[in-house]
């Protein structure tokens, strides 16, 4: 695989001592457009018409095409690892689903550290648009990929 | 081109203060505003021989004439359909003057619309007497569609769906009106501007309309004096020449419930008015530096900008961005604050502002206004004017 990031320039691991309860993650703002909704649906192999076919979406009662759930999960994980860095390992992502997100919406993720012990951190996350909550929930991660899971396949 | 173009002028304007509780009768408001308009024109009640008002007006011509001691009245007429009438009463007056039926015609509209019967309260108590007008309401009132905002919201939702206009585009119209009202001492919202955020946070009235998408309810009176252009030149004020005046009912037009045409977000009656105005005045949107666009509900301002060709179909949402309809923008609209910011006098106060822009005496004066457009209520059988400077 081609090397695009030299390992020496890799962000150092986030240390447990740098994380405190109530710390806020840098918000992530996604301006959703049609290309994004469709590209993400296809990249997650979701060919349900409501995620790429405007007319079909309207026919089924939506104002427009909307994000599929696997994309939302992907964005949540990206939001957390953008903050925690490449060393971190996500153990669990749990989200409650709210209003659909459509082209033209701006989806903003915010997150707060709610637990931190022995290098395992839980972050509560909220993804909202002007329509209301799109997704909310929590992500649990280990700050170091090797320390915790023992999985080294 | 109509025979009327350039033959007549608005020579006087007069109004009461605009308030939420005038503390006096509607007839007194009518008499005060008519007298003020005559004073402005340098005329007296004895000079008046024509009176035109709205069918919704509750002050009879006889009572206004008696209150002010007018003599013989040889022309009187009324125009139906509420806020659609401001250009139409001027059209009737101009036709009467141009044909010699009358020489000095006063148009007036006065009401305690806030402290008395509020239009926004709804028509749920209209009654079931079997007239065609009441039967028309049978398709709406029993389902809870009883107010102008609710009638308008149905059309607005579809327009927004088709054009992609968002709450922000509606907000731009409200922000412009309130910015202009903020520097107009006669405006109810004098010194009270709003932001886009204020608009977006204001409470729902009838989705997709928020409180700040809806015009005010007001007490007040406004009158206009129409004479021949020739006579106007001898009177004290700089004449506002009536270069064009037009009315419109198109096939799908209804009183606020034009829900049955192919494209309900396209105001066919307003396009009909606009086409006549441009043709009669031999002008185009490029000749208009400022306009009075009837603003009962913000989405209808967007639709009218499209009807008049100030921007293309579906493009008003972009046209109103970045302060383009505020002072200093491409087309400042409703420089008095409009009905959102100054007062809701069924559009008659907008005609007066058009006159002031031509005279060069508006508090928010736009530079070099040779011509201006004034529109009547949208989403109803409607009317419009092009007023211009003499010569």
């Amino acid at each position, binding site marked *: *695989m*081609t*090397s*695009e*990031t*030299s390992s020496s320039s*890799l962000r150092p691991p986030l240390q447990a001592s740098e994380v405190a309860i109530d710390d806020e993650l840098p918000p992530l703002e996604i301006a959703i457009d049609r290309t994004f909704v469709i*590209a993400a649906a296809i990249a*997650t*192999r979701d*060919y349900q018409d409501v995620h790429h076919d405007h007319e079909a979406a*309207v026919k*089924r*009662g*939506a*104002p427009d095409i909307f994000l599929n*759930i*696997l*994309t939302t999960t*992907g964005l949540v*994980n*990206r939001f957390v*690892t953008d903050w925690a860095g*490449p060393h971190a390992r*996500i*153990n*669990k*992502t*749990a*989200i409650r*689903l709210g209003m659909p997100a459509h082209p033209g919406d701006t989806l903003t993720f915010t997150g707060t550290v709610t637990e931190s012990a022995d290098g395992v951190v839980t972050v509560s996350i909220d993804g909202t648009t002007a329509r209301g909550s799109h997704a909310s929930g929590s992500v649990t991660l280990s700050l170091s*990929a090797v320390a915790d*899971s023992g999985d080294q*396949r | 081109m109509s025979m009327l173009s350039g033959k007549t002028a608005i020579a006087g304007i007069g109004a009461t203060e605009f308030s939420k509780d005038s503390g006096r009768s509607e007839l007194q408001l009518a008499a005060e505003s008519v007298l003020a308009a005559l004073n402005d024109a340098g005329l007296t009640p004895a000079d008046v021989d024509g009176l035109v008002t709205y069918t919704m007006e509750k002050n009879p011509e006889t009572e206004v004439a008696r209150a002010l001691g007018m003599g013989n009245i040889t022309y009187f007429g009324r125009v139906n359909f509420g806020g659609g009438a401001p250009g139409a009463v001027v059209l009737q007056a101009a036709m009467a003057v141009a044909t010699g039926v009358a020489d000095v015609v006063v148009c007036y509209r006065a009401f305690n619309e806030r402290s008395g019967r509020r239009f926004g309260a709804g028509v*749920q108590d*209209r009654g*079931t007497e*079997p*007239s*065609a007008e*009441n*039967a028309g*309401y049978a*398709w*709406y*009132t029993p*389902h*809870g*569609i*009883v*107010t102008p905002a*609710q009638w308008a*919201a*149905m059309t607005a*939702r*579809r327009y927004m*769906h088709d054009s992609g206009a968002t709450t922000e585009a509606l907000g731009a119209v409200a922000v412009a009106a309130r910015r202009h009202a903020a520097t107009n001492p006669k405006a109810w919202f004098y010194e009270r501007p709003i932001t886009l955020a204020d608009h977006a946070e204001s409470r*729902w009235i009838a*989705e997709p309309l928020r409180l700040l998408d809806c015009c005010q309810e007001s007490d007040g009176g406004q009158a206009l004096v129409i004479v021949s252009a020739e006579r106007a030149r001898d009177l004290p004020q700089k004449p506002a020449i009536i270069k064009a005046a037009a009315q419109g009912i198109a096939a799908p037009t209804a009183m606020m419930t034009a*829900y049955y045409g192919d494209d309900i977000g396209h105001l066919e009656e307003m396009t009909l008015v606009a086409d006549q105005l441009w043709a009669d005045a031999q002008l185009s949107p490029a000749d208009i530096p400022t306009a009075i666009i009837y603003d009962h509900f913000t989405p209808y301002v967007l639709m009218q900008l499209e009807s008049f060709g100030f921007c293309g179909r579906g493009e008003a949402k972009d046209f109103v961005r970045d302060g383009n309809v505020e002072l200093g923008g491409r087309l400042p609209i409703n420089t008095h604050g409009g009905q959102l910011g100054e007062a809701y006098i069924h559009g008659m106060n907008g005609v007066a502002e058009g006159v002031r822009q031509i005279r060069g005496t508006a508090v928010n004066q736009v530079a070099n206004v040779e011509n201006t457009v004034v529109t009547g209520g949208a989403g109803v059988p409607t009317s419009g004017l092009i007023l211009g400077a003499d010569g």
Partner: protein
Amino acid sequence: MSQDEHPGLTREQLDPFAGKSCGPSRQSRDPIAPSDIRSWIDAIGDTNPIYVDDDASMATGRSSVIAPPAMLQVWSMAGLGGTSKSTTQDPRKELFALLDDAGFTSVVATNCEQEYLGDAVPGDWITTSEVIESVSDVKDTGLGRGHFITTVMSFTASPDPLGDGELIGRQRWRLFRFAPKNRGSGGQAGGDSDRPPRPRPAINRDNAFFFEGTLAGELRIQKCDSCGTLRHPPSPACGACQSFDWSTVAMSGRGTIHSFVVNHHPQVPAFDYPLVVALVDLEEGVRFVAEMPDTDREDVAIGLPVEVRYRKQEDDLVMPHFVLAEGSSQ
């Protein structure tokens, strides 16, 4: 009212489904390819180098690049025209049919939970199996009354398509299967007696046929005897051909929402607010306005299919309203 209509399924009916497998396990059609990962990170905008850069991934203590954990379910997706779900015996079908019959016809996904137990890497084959974990007792929510159904998918990964995989993760999905909320529309016969009735329509010679129709349970629209044009609102003559001869036809009552309003203010005592009122394109080609008193504002959108219902308002007056058609929920 909705409680009486939808008492919910009993534990006796529901318990047999818990723990049932949703058909045999399925293997991904291809092993994980780096290009699939690339498409995903491009779309999601994820710049984490551990998904594409071996050196960077090893520097974090991993053995190689790994597949993004959130792609867990992606590998088992059927793809365009996929048929993986319908070919086998799936107890969910039976469960959904049972719920349908009990009136719980709408469905919405409410929760998605992924647990990552190991890493998948390029070259791995992913095998998926799914079981019904639980079906809840009947619950009342903001959407209405219904049952939550939780299923769990398990994912194993193996570099050998025939080999035994290692468990790399689970995905727990929760659906709510429900009957949309009835918000107790007022002004009905037998409704609360303090409440004033809805405004009565003004009925005259031109529109009386319509209200005779609703008494008979029909949505009647005028039709020109001469040229066949349908017209609404009613009129004594045909605008298309000027004929004064007309009859009426009963509409199917089905249509789609052309526009709608949600009334908040002012509040007329006869109605519940927020009040949804829709302008509907009837399938026969005319438009018609009616309230949707049992529909939540969040559930309404332009284009949604609706169906007419009737409500006795006074002894001599029946009024139509619309409800969302079945299967129109997102």
